[in-house]
């Protein structure tokens, strides 16, 4: 009897596994094709077979040596810009969130509400005046022009605030009795405890900015200041016929995303569940 249920259970698990594998396999098939295509010669691209005759590993090196495709530079720029945005976002958001969640002051909740309301505004509405602003400040085609507009996020503030609300207030009082200033309270008490939210916001913000295409597209004009998304666009439009090299570039450009996801999967999942409940 027990043997039978065990076998039954085994069969059910097996079916489940096969279904899961079929779905997961289908979802990764495009990536499989991409990897194999990136290892082909150009002549093999149009063939039915996905497999290269000889693996052309040098394709990956060739991407870095193409004229007009400053792949390495773009890679660096993307990470550089995304890192700065993330840093500023986490810093300013956590400061504001600290104030909104743990300090008592008149009008606090009203301002927070106003702030929150802007989260639902489409970014497109602001893009044209923002661009005019950038011209006024002389920031077109500069890195600060790319970094600053994304560095102050209402969403980040919201996410951090929700988390900070859940940290017990009694800690603050204990710290105040010890004579800590508000700054010390923020820096030494709340921030270390808010670590999961900081990590979540870091991941979100980095991923979002690493992939962002619209703003760099209108802001940047020098080839050496491109970020990867618009660089890939230029690659595709100027030398996109070289499908094998293009696919190698695509494969390389998603590596940071994969690294982040694999290492921070747990926090990210937690963060989505935390931040997702509202907005």
């Amino acid at each position, binding site marked *: 009897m027990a043997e039978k249920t065990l076998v039954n259970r085994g069969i059910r698990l097996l079916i489940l596994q096969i279904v899961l594998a079929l779905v997961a396999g289908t979802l990764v098939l495009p990536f499989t094709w991409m990897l194999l295509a990136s290892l082909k010669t*150009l*002549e*093999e*691209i*149009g*063939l039915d077979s996905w497999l290269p005759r000889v693996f052309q590993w040098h394709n990956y090196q060739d991407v870095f040596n*193409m*004229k*007009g*495709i400053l792949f390495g530079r773009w890679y*660096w*720029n993307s990470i*550089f810009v995304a*890192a*700065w945005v993330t*840093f500023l976002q986490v810093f300013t958001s956590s400061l504001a969130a600290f104030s909104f969640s743990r300090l008592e002051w008149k009008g606090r909740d009203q301002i927070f509400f106003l702030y929150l309301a802007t989260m639902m505004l489409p970014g497109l509405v602001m893009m044209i005046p923002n*661009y*005019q602003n950038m*011209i006024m400040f002389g920031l*077109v*085609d500069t*890195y600060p022009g790319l970094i600053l507009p994304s560095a102050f996020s209402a969403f980040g503030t919201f996410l951090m605030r929700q988390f900070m609300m859940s940290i017990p207030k009694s800690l603050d009082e204990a710290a105040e009795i010890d004579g800590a200033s508000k700054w010390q309270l923020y*820096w*030494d008490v709340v*921030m*270390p405890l808010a*670590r999961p939210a900081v990590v979540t916001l870091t991941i979100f913000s980095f991923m979002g900015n690493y992939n962002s295409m619209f703003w760099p*597209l*209108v802001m*940047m*004009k*020098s*080839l*050496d*200041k491109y970020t990867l998304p*618009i660089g890939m*666009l*230029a690659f595709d*439009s*100027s030398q996109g*016929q070289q*499908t094998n090299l293009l696919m190698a570039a695509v494969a390389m450009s998603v590596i940071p995303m994969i690294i982040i996801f694999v290492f921070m999967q747990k926090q990210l999942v937690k963060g989505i569940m935390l931040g997702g409940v509202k907005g």
Partner: protein
Amino acid sequence: MKKLFIGILVVLVAAAFYTYWTEPSNESRVPVVYWKSDSNPQRYEQIEMFHRWLVRKGYVTPDGEPMMKLELDAGGNQSSLIQAVSGVGGDAIDAYVSSFQPLGVCLDITDMGKELNFGEKDTYRAIWPMLTSEGRQYAYPCNLGVNTWWGNLDTFRKYGMEAPPKDWNIEEFEKYGVEFVRRANEGKERQDVYFIPSIATTPSIPQMMARGEGVDMYNETLTRATINNPAYIRAFETVLRWTNDLHLAPSAAEVASMSSEGGYGGVNMSQFIAGKFGLVFYGRYCLIRFRESTTKINFFSTLPAMGDYKNVMVIARAAIMYRGSKHPELIKHFFEFLADKEYNDSIIEGADGLPPNPKFAENNPALYRPAAYPNEGDVHQNEFEWARDYGVIPPISPYFRGSSFDTWIKYALDKYFNNRVANAAEALQEAEDRYNESIDTTVAANPLLQEAYQRDVELQRRIDEYKAAGKKIPASWIKNPFYLKYYHDKGMLEETE
């Protein structure tokens, strides 16, 4: 936490220093000027050549360095417009005068052009309207090109035929093509050799055909699209007949079923090399790719088949001088360079279209019969002479604004080829409406344009009256370069010199 935070900050600041340090524009001691163009690898060679040319011409700093550094700015075309109007465009921009001049961002280079030899006399007559607005020059071409039929002589000989005549009408073209297809596919179960590749996405072929009957896409003043007319309908019907009835060209379905190996130049080029197409619709630029191929093709070229009035479409990539340039004194030498021998020779040698300055093309053996490529025959001479004698720029109206000029005509052709409209007239009417609606919107949004538009509409009314009365039309009334040339050649123009 604190340490981590400060650590990250230090790393980021260091990264910022590194990033600024390694920026190329910071390395230069001479002024940097920007050329906004595509990121074609050839641009880099041209830029290096420009720097050498500067030295040779004596445009140098006291220590013998070139007096400026030219940088390629290869941003997308769409942001180039917004950057230009915002004061941050490149110093020289590859752009259409018709879209950029109305914004007031182009520098008038008429006088400079006369002085430094990149003016009207230093380029083709056909292309001149594309460089000017209201008689003032704003641009100079980087190169230009003409698409005509290019053939593979070996393929023709294989089927016991000789090269077709250089100049043919539609009946001759069809007769020749039917014969070619018959011989090439004799005894085959399924047709696999075609006279020409698919033309379902090439509106310029029917456009030239309609021009061959004296009709253009816009009217004489470019104020209205006039696509739905008998000449255009006939042209559309002709190209569909080539595909569906005569099987000179493969249908979309047949294209997909032809075995397709990837590679440069796409399917058409590889199939042409393989002898599956008798003719392809190319210009000189295609030689850049063909010369890389190991197969040496014996080329010939012929004019597109059309009615009485011979014409070809010349397309130029032209640079405007940016009004917001910080270095107009420097960048003018770049235009001088474009019209000078060194650059023109490099275009001739590299087969990157035709050189912008016809002076260096006319009777130049290096162009007419390049010694290194005897297999290329007279295609070079043909292209140059046709551009010079029959060239007209594509239909472009200053009142139509959009990312691409042939969007709707392409759309009409696509609908017609895929049986999504009852007949050619229906497809053309829709395209005509879309063009006219767009013109109305553009004009309505811009009071400055409205004035010019009203004036042109009034001129159009008078032109129509004159035409109806059979009178000669004053040349100054006509804005459409095609009609200007056509009426001139037909003696319908009242020219005041």
